[in-house]
C-alpha cells in the first residue's frame, strides 16, 4: 500500500464572503439566546448541583471511603490475611495481626490503618479480600487538617457508613452467594443494602 506524499505546505481555510462580513455571528447569537430562554423557562436539564445541599447520585459501584464490615456479633470480619495490603498499588494499607481466641478464625487485625492521602481508590483491596471484610462506600468528601489525621484507623473504618445501606459503594457482586446466605438465614448487611430501594433508584 502506497499513499500520497505528505503535504509540503499547509493550505489554510479561506473565508467565505459571509464570514468576512461577520454574518454567521447572528446564528451564534440565536444559539445562546435559545439556551438562555430554555434555561429561564426551566426546559433544559441543569447540570450544576447545589453542593453540599444537593449531591450527585452515584452508582452502587462508586469507589469511595473504605468500610470494614463486621460479623453479626460486631467483631471485624477481617482475618488479617494481608491480601489487601499486598494487592494495594499505593501501599496505603497497614495491618498488624494478632491471634484470635477462636481457633476457627485464627487471626484478627490489631491495627488496620488506611492512609487516605496515599490511597488511589482503585478498589483492588475489595477485589482481593477473600472474606468480604473490606468494601467501599460512596463517600468521597474527606478532608483532614493534618497528614496524621488522614491515616484512618480500624475504629473509623468501622464506624461511619456501615449502618447506612444507601451509602455503600464498590463491593463484590455474586448473586449465587447471596441466595445461599439468604437460605441459611444469615444476616447480611451488604446483601440487604443491595436490595435497598435507595440503591436501585440511584444510577
Amino acid at each position: 500500500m502506497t499513499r500520497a506524499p505528505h503535504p509540503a505546505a499547509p493550505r489554510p481555510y479561506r473565508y467565505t464572503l459571509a464570514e468576512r462580513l461577520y454574518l454567521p455571528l447572528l446564528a451564534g447569537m440565536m444559539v445562546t439566546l435559545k439556551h438562555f430562554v430554555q434555561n429561564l423557562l426551566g426546559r433544559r436539564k441543569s447540570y450544576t448541583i447545589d453542593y453540599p445541599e444537593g449531591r450527585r447520585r452515584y452508582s452502587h459501584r462508586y469507589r469511595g471511603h473504605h468500610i470494614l464490615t463486621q460479623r453479626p456479633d460486631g467483631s471485624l470480619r477481617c482475618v488479617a490475611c494481608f491480601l489487601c495490603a499486598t494487592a494495594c498499588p499505593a501501599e496505603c494499607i497497614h495491618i498488624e495481626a494478632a491471634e484470635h481466641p477462636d481457633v476457627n478464625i485464627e487471626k484478627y487485625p490489631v491495627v488496620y490503618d488506611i492512609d487516605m492521602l496515599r490511597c488511589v481508590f482503585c478498589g483492588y483491596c475489595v477485589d482481593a479480600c477473600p472474606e468480604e471484610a473490606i468494601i467501599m462506600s460512596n463517600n468521597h468528601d474527606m478532608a483532614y487538617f493534618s497528614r496524621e489525621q488522614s491515616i484512618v484507623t480500624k475504629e473509623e473504618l468501622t464506624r461511619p457508613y456501615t449502618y447506612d445501606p444507601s451509602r455503600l459503594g464498590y463491593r463484590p457482586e455474586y448473586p449465587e452467594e447471596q441466595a445461599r446466605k439468604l437460605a441459611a438465614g444469615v444476616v447480611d448487611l451488604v446483601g440487604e443494602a443491595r436490595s435497598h430501594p435507595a440503591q436501585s433508584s440511584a444510577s
Partner: protein
Amino acid sequence: MPTVPPPTAPLPLLDRLPAGSVVPEEGCDQETWIVHREVLADLALALRDDAENRFDLLLDLCGVDYPERDERFEAVYHLCSLPLDRRLRLKVPVPEDDPVLPSLIGVWKAANWFEREAWDMFGIRFEGHPNLRRLLTHEAFEGHPLRKDYDPARRWILPQEKVYKPLPVPEGETDEDIFERMTINIGPSHPAMHGTFRVVATLDGERIVASEVEIGYLHRCFEKMSETHTWQQVIPYTDRLNYCSSFINNVAYCRAVEGLLGIEAPPRAVWARTILSEFSRIMDHCVCNGSTLVDAGALTNFWYLFQPREEIYGLLEACSGARLTVSYCRIGGLAADLPPDFVARSRVLLDSIPEFIDDVDRLVLKNRIWLDRSVGVAAISGEEAVNWGWTGPCLRASGVASDVRRDHPYDLYDTVDFEVPVLHGGDVFDRFRVRMAEIRQSLSIIRQLLDRGMPEGPYIVSDPHVALPPKDAAYNQMEAMIYHFKLIMDGIQVPPGEIYSMVEGANGELGFYVISDGSGKPYRIKVRPPCFPIFSTFSRLINGGTVSDAVVSLGGLNVIAGELER
C-alpha cells in the same frame, strides 16, 4: 505472541553496510534489527530516504538497562513508514563505559526530546545533540533513575539557586537588537498552560522571537514505579497518563500485556472496550476543543462541550465506580460486568451529545472572531509534522491520513464503518475541526456497535492464572481460593518477551513497549505518549507569533501533562 515473518524482499540497504553491522532478530512481535552503533547514523538516513523504506516517522526512542550484559544498555528506536505502512524496531547496544550514540536530530526532529529523555533516564549520551540537558528530572538530580541499580525510593531536592534559567536568544542577534527585548515566563503555573509547562519566551513587542520549553513538573516516575509493581497493579497508574481519556490508556496497557500472554479478551469485553474508548475519545476532544475556545475567550462553548463530558463520566462511573481514574480494564477483560442499563444509557448519550456539538459548530465554525484567532496560527505542514513525530488528530489536520484504528485495526474497529477526517490547514482551526469531525465519527462507531447488540458471555477470561476467580468460587471452593491467593500474592506470570502494542489514543498513537523477563513484574514499560513529540515542536510553532497565539496553539495541541511527563 504473534511473530512477524522476516521480510520477503531482500534489503539492498543492508548490502551497502558493513557485514554484520545490522542483524535481523528472529521471533519478535515486529520486524527488529540489532544495529551496531557505528552505522546507526548512516542507516537512519537511508531508512528515511530510500524509496523502498521511507521510514518517515520516528515513533519512539527509549533506553533499556540490562546490567548482566556486556553492553549494558540498549537504545530502542521504533520507526514507522506511513507511505509503505511498515514498522521497524532498531536495537542499538551501548556499552556502559562509553555510553555514546550519534544524535539523530538531523534525520528526525522528533529525536530531540526522546534523546534528552534517554540521556536523563539512562545516561546515554547523544553526540551532536545541540541541547542535551535533563528533560524530566531537574538540575540537582544525580544519577539516572531508570537504571536498574537506581533505588526507586531515592529523592532529590532542587535548591532555588540550581533552578535552570533559560534565556533564549534569537540567532544572529547583536547586543543592540537585544536592547528592547524582554524575556518572560509563561507558566508553569498559569491557567492558560493547561497543566504545568513552562515556556520562557523572548519578546519583541508582543511578538515571540525565541522561546524555550521546560517540562517535567508532573514527572512521577511512572515507568520506574511500574517496575516495582505487579502487572495488574500498573493499571491504576495508567489511568493517570492521559487523564482526560483514562480508559484508552487502560485498554492500551492491557492489550500489550495480553499480547505477551497470548490471550484475547472475550467478545463482550472487546465490545465494551471499543464503545468506552470511543466515549473517552469524545470526552477528550470535548475537553480539548472546549478549553481551546476558552483560551480564545469563547467561554460559552466550554459549558456546552463539558455537558456531554459530564454525562459520559456518569456512564463510566456506573461501569467502573470512578469518574476520572476508571481502572476499568483488567488484563484479560474488564474489572466488572457492564451494568444492566448500559445500552439504554449509552443510547441516551448518543441522542443528547450531537445537540451540544451542533451548538458549538453554529457558534464558532463560521465565526470570524474565532477564525481570525485560529486560521493560520501555529501552522505546520504534513511533511514537517511527520518529521517531528506527530500522530493523531493534529497530524490529520496537516493533511496526513494516519489513524491506528484504520491502519492496524484492533478490537472491533475493522468491523465498523468510519471515516478518518483529514484537513489541510495544519493550524489551530483545522485541528479544532478535525476533532469536531472525529466526535461525530465516534458517535457513529458507538451507534453501529450498540445496534449490533451486546455479546453474551463472560467479561473476563476464565484462566485462573490471569483473572481472579469469581467471588462466589473464591469463597466456597478450595481450588479457586488457592488461585485467588496465588494471583494476588505473586501476580500474573508473564512469559519473557517484548511487545510494542499501540492503540489510537485521543491525541495520537499511544504505544506501550513492554518487556517481560518472566518474573512477576514488568522488566521495562515504555509509554509512547502521543503528545510528547507534539509538544517538543511547541517552540517552533510559537516563534514568530504573538503571545496570545501561543496560548491558543497550546490549547489546540491538547498536551496533557500526565502523559507528557509520566
